[in-house]
């Protein structure tokens, strides 16, 4: 798979993964606080943030595998820099990545409109929830509570991963740093079109 990637795409992907690994770690502490306040559902409120890198990487690089790979690397780095959940987290990352990747795959990796990004965020919510259901034993909780958790997570994935990811990527593109990526070109096209109409 990587043979088709340009070196700079691989490196940009890794850099994004590393940066967001740090962000994830920060949010883990934040999640713990929410957990303390709201109980288990507290995590679900911000769960979407943990999928954001797959949305950003896919939206910027637009190649098959970007979502999965970035989320996996981010999880691995997170373990390396001190998320002591340990190796299991890498698997969780992979599963979250698969959710987003599946949505992008369904869109044939050539449609990156807002609703696709939102769907991708929700895709991660679904896979991560299924995984959590088995690994963390949600079965022991009351069904209505579990359903509530699921919907909260779905919304969180849509907003915090899908929309926030899109917004961040576009703010980045505005700085010109992504000018040689498809997203940068898209931005330029839009700008020049606006220029014509204005």
């Amino acid at each position, binding site marked *: 798979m990587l043979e088709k990637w340009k*070196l700079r795409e691989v490196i940009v992907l890794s850099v994004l993964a590393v940066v967001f690994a740090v962000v994830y770690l920060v949010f883990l502490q934040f999640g713990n606080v929410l957990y303390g306040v709201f109980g288990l559902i507290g995590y679900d409120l911000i769960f979407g943030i943990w999928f954001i890198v797959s949305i950003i990487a896919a939206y910027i690089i637009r190649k098959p595998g970007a979502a999965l790979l970035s989320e996996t690397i981010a999880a691995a780095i997170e373990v390396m820099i001190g998320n002591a959940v340990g190796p299991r987290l890498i698997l969780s990352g992979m599963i979250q990545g698969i959710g987003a990747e599946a949505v992008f795959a369904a869109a044939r990796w050539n449609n990156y409109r807002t609703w696709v990004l939102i769907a991708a965020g929700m895709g991660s919510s679904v896979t991560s929830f299924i995984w959590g259901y088995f690994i963390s034993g949600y079965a022991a909780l009351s069904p209505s509570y579990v359903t509530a958790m699921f919907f909260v997570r779905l919304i969180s994935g849509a907003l915090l991963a899908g929309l926030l990811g899109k917004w961040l990527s576009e703010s980045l593109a505005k700085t010109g740093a992504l*000018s040689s990526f498809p997203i940068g070109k898209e931005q330029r096209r839009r700008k020049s079109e606006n220029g014509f109409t204005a």
Partner: protein
Amino acid sequence: MASLRNQSLIKCEHLTFRHEDEQKPVFKSIDFTLYPGEAILLLGPSGCGKSTLAFCLNKLYPEAVDGELEGTVSYKGKMLEEFRPGEINKHIGIVFQDPESQFCMTTVEDELAFGLENMKTPPEEIGCKIDEALKLVHLLPFKHALIHTLSGGQKQKLALACVLSLKPEILILDEPTANLDPASSHELTRIIKRIKDERALSLLIIEHKLDDWIDLTDRCLVLNREGEILFNGSHADCFNTYAEELQAEGIWLPNTVKAGLLTKKAGIFTGKELPLNHEEMIAGLISPDSALQFLDNKKNTPTCLEKQTILSAKDLSFNIGPKELLKSISFTVKKGEFVAISGSNGSGKTTLSRLLAGLFSPSSGEILYHDRPLSSWKEHELRNKLGYVFQNPEHQLIADTVTDEIAFSLKIQHMPDNEIQKIVQTTLKQVNLLHHGDMHPFSLSQGQKRRLSVASMLVNEQELLLLDEPTFGQDAKTARELMALMEEKIQSGSSVVMITHDMEILHSYADKVIVLSDGEKIYEGTPAELWKEQEIMKLASLKVPYIEKLKDELRAMSRREKLAFT
């Protein structure tokens, strides 16, 4: 040699490159050939496309940017498109213009090892090759240093060591000496000369300051502002026939040529051709005495009145961990004074300037600005009165377009929009960036970035301007214009503290020079006095400006002549 040259190493045909969102190509239909063992000097005004051309020659462009490349480049008869990414780079080594952006590892040792690994060097040989390369550029003590802690010049040396260790067939150097002190930069040219002779290396050198390169290159390739070839041929032809055209394009002439041109106009130089080296220069002069008289006349006299002190540094020291970067430095800056700071690479100039700008606080000692300790100033008050230009222009730049960059601090001061517009336009014009207003600052050429970073500080009416090597990477014209802007500042009563490796600037502008060596102040005084202090000059890796050297020699000659008469 002619027999060697039957096969071309690199051949460019009708090469044209255009950035995707630009109408105008960077350079147009470039044709040239590099033969084995040959060295070409590539000249041109800042922003004419030299670096872009260099990237196109080894396939880094158009891969890394979005642009259209027309025409062909071939290496030993094989088209570049036929090489995999990274493949051709084993034959063509390059030192980038920006010393910050060419490293991919954390430590000096790893960086060198990385390249050698790529070349499939047997692991047991890598160790000694690393040492060998570091010794060449005197960086051996820094073998285990973290790259980001090296000074600007040290990074440039490391970049060179990296590429030399790979033993490429062709070496492209993009302004390899821009950040080096005069002695290192001279030494570096000698290293390259030696290696070229030993290994039959082919060279393409991009430089603004040519003096040390003339004798090791065979030919010049000159681009004009439009990115077209102006001239392609021998140095002698180039500087004789085109000297004035080159000057008009804003290209630096070698010092000897410049002096020759000057004296020729005054009728003192009678050589048939403009001098390409010192011997020819001396030989062409009618008599040492008249030349001396003429050159002495041109001397400017610094106006040193009794003035009020605006900045004083007392016993400044600065440590990072156990490392003493600065050791008890004291000096003062007066109103309307032009103070230059110089010294060898890594001597602590940048560190000192950061202390003066209030970005670092000294480990001990004190800085008084307008008789108040720097630390007691309110941030925004201080910034209105004190400007700072970073050594790395990219560190300065924070806005998304060139125009916004200049307008940035004006907007903070809530200046009316039309006034901002006006100032921005004049400033852009002054620094020759009028056509680049809408571009992103980071996509400018290195020299353009430098000018922008200076310009962003010139719009405010600060009383003190600290500039860290503001003229490096500039062509003659833009450098002159930048210095004129500084002069203007001085005239209006501001003071300028400028770090520079450029001895000519030191000589013709500075009222006072401070020389650092290893974190200590070893000299403070006028430039004219400095040239006489040989010990200090040597310690700080400085060099006497050419005109001064010439005058010294003429003086010696005239003394000898007089002795011969009596």
